[in-house]
């Protein structure tokens, strides 16, 4: 997989845009997912995802091929998303809080059902609640939790994406987990 990606990147470096299209095919959903989970809005996620790919294309020469391409690309997407969050109005989170009461009933139901089976169909409301709770995390913890539990990356890979050492990754995930737990505990 990584070999294939490296070959495609060589073609991109020579200016082959069709090769870049292949990279979009491979990573568009993951990049979009990261942006969406970071900013919590589909329109913005699309905009940020496109921007991430555009920057990757323009800066392909600064990509270090000894590292995973996906880590580099995800880092661009994450940084762009964090920049966007900084520029946003502070009242954004208040919006998200309104649906909170619904979440309460959802969680109590979940508590009665016990652990979630992997293939359980999760309701739309719960999906919204999950996103709202992720949005409540500080961006530093949010990105680590997204990489770990939604993108299924290893601790080492997360370190590469966020450009931080593995112990720092662990700390952020632990704190993110604890923060989420406190919000999801109300039973």
């Amino acid at each position, binding site marked *: 997989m990584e070999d294939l990606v490296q070959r495609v990147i060589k073609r991109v470096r020579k200016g082959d845009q069709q090769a*870049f299209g292949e990279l979009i*095919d491979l990573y568009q*959903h993951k990049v*979009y997912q990261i942006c969406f*989970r970071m900013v919590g809005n589909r329109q913005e996620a*699309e905009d940020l995802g496109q921007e991430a790919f555009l920057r990757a294309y323009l800066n392909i020469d600064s990509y270090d091929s000894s590292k995973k391409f996906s880590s580099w690309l995800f880092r661009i997407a994450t940084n762009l998303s964090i920049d966007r969050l900084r520029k946003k109005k502070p009242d954004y989170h208040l919006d998200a809080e309104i649906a909170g009461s619904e979440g309460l009933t959802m969680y109590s139901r979940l508590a009665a059902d016990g652990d979630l089976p992997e293939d359980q169909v999760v309701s739309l409301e719960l999906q919204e609640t*999950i996103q709202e709770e992720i949005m409540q995390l500080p961006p530093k913890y949010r990105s680590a939790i997204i990489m770990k*539990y939604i993108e299924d990356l290893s601790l080492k890979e997360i370190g590469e994406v966020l450009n931080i050492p593995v112990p720092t990754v662990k700390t952020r*995930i632990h704190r993110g987990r604890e923060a989420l737990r406190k919000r999801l505990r109300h039973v």
Partner: protein
Amino acid sequence: MACNSDTAALMHKVLDEIADEKDKQDLTLHLQSCLECREHFEELKRTIAIVQSASRVKAPENFKKSVMARLPREKRRPAVRRWLQTHPVVAAAALFLIFMTGYLFQIWHAPQEVAVMGEGHVVKGSDIVIVPEDVVINGDLIVHNSDVRIEGKVKGDVTVINGRQYMASAGQVTGQIKEVNEILGWIWYQIKHLFTGLVSLHEIRGFSL
């Protein structure tokens, strides 16, 4: 939390899947005796399950197209190269045609050229080739870029390419007389020639085997 932070650290170690057997044992032992920690651990596990159950969102249909449209214009070179790579036969044919045409024009406009395939000789003028009265050519005569006047005899075919042939009287040429004055006709003549050449070569090989 009533228990010390070591227990919390142990929980996260287990959740990060980096705990060894002893860590796991220690945690299990503690959780059996401590309800608060047991609840804490259960809540953490449930939190993870909930986050993991977040559906994987997909980029919209037109995502790729939109990105491609925003890329700066591609330089010409790779586009041409890619076209050549995807159409190698067309590219080879085009290249062949270019060279072939160049080659054909070159020899079409070449100076006078006479080939006598057999015995006999001819007299070459500035733009005419003459087979003198007393000469008998035992074979074919091919003349390029020149007129021909046959006063003697040719015991074979006469081909005049890009020129005309004049004869003092009929019956002096035993074979066929051909005038090729159109370049396409000439190309056709060349192809036929090549083909008969190949066939005869093939036949000779067939006999020798």
